[in-house]
């Protein structure tokens, strides 16, 4: 560690543990395996979804409508068909770091 210096014995153990945890992964598992990719299947996720707020519009929703796209993409939820990120469009969301801010950067994908 560069920014913290362990002072007492407990701190020393935490630091040693941080180092050894890395070593064990390296020895036993090779590189850290990639995180599991969503979706794993539509039936695994239950999301209540949204269509309109109480006034009939979308401004009062507790989650922005743009999230709908991502709910479909990540949670595999109705309504939109999203591009297949496993094979044909792996970089479809690469310009979209935050759905709330960057949703316009998600473009259409033509087969």
């Amino acid at each position, binding site marked *: 560690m560069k920014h913290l210096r362990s002072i007492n*014995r407990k701190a020393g153990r*935490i630091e040693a543990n941080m180092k050894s945890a890395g070593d064990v992964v390296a020895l036993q598992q090779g590189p850290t395996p990639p995180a599991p990719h969503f979706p794993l299947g539509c039936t695994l996720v239950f999301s209540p979804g949204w269509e309109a707020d109480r006034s009939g519009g979308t401004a009062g929703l507790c989650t922005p409508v743009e999230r709908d796209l991502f709910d479909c993409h990540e949670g595999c939820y109705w309504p939109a068909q999203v591009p297949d990120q496993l094979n044909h469009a792996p970089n479809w969301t690469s310009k979209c770091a935050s759905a709330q801010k960057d949703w316009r950067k998600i473009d259409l994908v033509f087969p």
Partner: protein
Amino acid sequence: MTTAPIATTIRRREFHSFTSAGKPFAYLVPSAAVFELDDASAAILALLENGPIAPAELIGQLTPRFSEIELHETVDELLRVQAIAAGLDAPPLPKLLPIGAQVGAEPGMPIPLTTMVLNVTNQCNLSCTYCYEYGEDKIVDTENGKKAKFMTEETARESVDFMLREAGPNRTAHLTFFGGETLMNLPVLKFAIPYARERAAALGKQVDFSLTTNATLLRPEVIAFLAENRVGVTISIDGPKDVQDQFRVFHNGMGSYEIAVPKIRELLTRHRSRPIGARVTLTSQNLDIRKIFRHLRDEIGFYEVGFAPVTTASNREYAIADAGFDYMLDQFRSLAAEFLEYALEDRHHGFSNVKDTLEEIHKGVSKAYPCGAGLGLMGVSTDGDVALCHRFAGSDSHKLGTVRDGIDRLVQIDFLNKHHIADKTDCSQCWARPLCSGGCYHEAHTRYGDTAHANLHYCEWIRGWTDTCLKIYAELAVKNPRYLQQFDEEEHEASQVN
């Protein structure tokens, strides 16, 4: 290793930050780890005092003082030592009972008993006004109750057998004799010590002996016996004559100073096999800690002096009120500053409250329970009932079993379950809980009528004192780390019982 960019909002976890020797430190809760901070980590932790912060904002506020890479690196380190967390919700910590105390645990694998406190008598030749055993707040009726006034040799023998049985895999068992006035039952000590030594040797174990006494019965032959058997001795004494004679009096009201002190001097001269400590009870009328320390350490010659506030209901005249705790903290701090000066020069000082706390900080002790009572320490009453500790010995409502029939594991598990720090809501936000863990069960019972209650009347004092000891610890770690090495060497001998 490469550092991933900060992914999400970060927030402070629990820690207490403090400055010592001109450097910033953090005491992490609940791990009890102490880290020295550099400028970047100190700046990030300070920023998080205002609430959770998004990565972009954090970087915006702290660049160009620090480079973006430096900030990412520091956040990563702080995350990994758990000083901070990503996301907004803190997952609650699991409540872990000690191994062997879970419901359904193997009955053959109980928690080993480290220390047994044997109340060899509940009688005393003094009548100290504030005494928890004799005074207004007593739990057990020692005068007219049905409990035996003196322990018999038979009960002492059964107790020693019980202790060695319950010590499990431990090589050393600690046997502490207590009272009443312990030396009023000298015959039982003279029987129990050789018996315990012999039984332990047969099992490949050893026993460490100690006792607490008011010193009035230390005749030369008693001193010779204690020295010969390497019995650790703690003397209950409150200070110079005017202080001692205020509360520590004989039944006829006469002060005990003149009787006790010549005997203490003789003990200190003749008993050289173990260091001898004094244990002072502080009351509202007796808070001049520096004066008491000087007298006991320099004029009488004790190796160590430890102080503890009187355990009492809050309405007693001698109970220490809030202002008294503030005054006491100032006094403790001034004596602790002196301790630090000595420690920086590798000199022995003798203020044992600081040393005990430094040792716990050094090891990173993080307690689920305030003390070992009902866990590795138990008290045995004159008739062989086993209780949480010596202060509860003889009380039927705090009984865990008997030396003959052993410990009722279900009662013990129930006790450990109800007294875990995770269930003390009052303590859940307090940074001092790794060391305090709610405080003494007996104190809580006397103040609030409930052993599981947190001792809220001295929270400010505990936090103030812990902060002082952390600063001393950190200063020693920076300027004289060699001093702290003593805590790495063999485990401390049995701490005093009071």
